[in-house]
């Protein structure tokens, strides 16, 4: 059995998002091999006409249903449509999805407004989480697999205009100046 099939079975059985580290432990393989296998799995599901797909956010992966099946699955699970996201929520989620993981000051630099409450709110809803890497002595935040499931994408790369916004020069400049002013005041 190929490693990607083995990982597929593992994600299927545990029925929850799993970190690459945990997957690597479970299948007794090194992280680079797991990374390759996750890519292969994602590719195979997409090209073989599967009803499932792999969603990834940062180091976490989950096996989920294809968005084309959303209506039928929702009806079978007797679930209601997700509630609408408010404008500040969408704004925060977008910034974190395109540019995350980032620290709270970095997020606030872009939004121009104090964001601890909106972050808390989104964490309570499971759409945002602490990511492992800290920067400037601050925790970083990023969107979760649940966020991508909600909007029906398999990961950040599928976001509209991803590469353009990811490398937006104004963003780059502003964040660099933020780092500089931090160092200055430190």
């Amino acid at each position: 059995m190929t490693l990607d099939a083995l990982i597929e079975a593992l994600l299927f059985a545990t029925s929850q998002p799993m970190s690459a580290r945990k997957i690597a432990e479970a299948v007794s393989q090194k992280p680079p091999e797991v990374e390759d296998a996750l890519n292969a799995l994602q590719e195979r599901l997409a090209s073989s006409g599967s009803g499932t797909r792999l969603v990834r956010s940062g180091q976490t992966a989950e096996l989920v249903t294809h968005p084309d099946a959303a209506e039928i699955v929702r009806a079978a699970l007797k679930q209601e449509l997700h509630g609408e996201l408010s404008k500040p929520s969408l704004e925060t989620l977008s910034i974190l999805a395109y540019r995350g993981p980032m620290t709270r000051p970095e997020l606030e630099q872009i939004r121009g407004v104090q964001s601890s409450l909106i972050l808390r709110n989104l964490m309570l809803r499971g759409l945002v989480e602490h990511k492992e890497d800290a920067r400037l002595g601050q925790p970083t935040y990023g969107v979760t697999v649940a966020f991508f499931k909600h909007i029906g994408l398999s990961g950040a790369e599928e976001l509209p205009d991803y590469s353009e916004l990811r490398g937006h020069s104004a963003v780059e400049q502003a964040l660099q100046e933020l780092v500089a002013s931090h160092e200055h005041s430190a």
Partner: protein
Amino acid sequence: MPYSVRIEQFEGPLDLLLQLVESEKLEITSVSLLQVTEPFVRHVREHHGKIPPEELADFLIVAARLVYLKSKAILPTLTDPELEEGPDLETQLRMYKAFAQAAAKIAALANAGRSSYGRIYRAPKREAPVFTPPNGVTPNLLRELYHRAARRLEPLIALPKTSLEHAMTVEEKIGQLRDRVSTLMHSSFHRFLSESQNKHEMVISFLALLELIKLRIVRVEQDGHFSDITLTLTNAV
């Protein structure tokens, strides 16, 4: 009102600024920012009570930076390191706009209802409920962890109060200023600013000053292009 609800009701200062620039059908430039300074400040003043306390300071800071830009246009020697710090407002607004547009696309995705669903975990039937306690957990460890979780909540609960302390009300400051102007009659713009204790106070002083000029309580005089501005109390009071 609980903090969790209040946050959803008002958009930030950059959102307001962008809406003003766009409603005037302007490009984002330093000149267009000067053009929307007044409506921005007016909006902040009119919606003062509706802006969540923890966001008020941010609205005031943007207002202050706008007024600062405008003041610099008439008083080129004016410089304030703190208000110059960080990316300029124009850059910041452009960046904000890029994400606001992206957010609209994300909203369209979210509203399409094309969500993915994970599996529902169903425990194997034959396995009876197990008891698998962790190793090394002691009552003291539980105490420590619970206490830490509780402590983590403290800044959040104090937030509205600390934010309000941050953003002293413009009205209060206007009162103070009015008193000061009455007693001094002449007050130098530079001195007025230099007496501010910190950035927030300076922000409020700026707004208050603008307020007073608009209400024609204070008259602004400037002898030459680069000389200091003199504030004078008018007969209106």
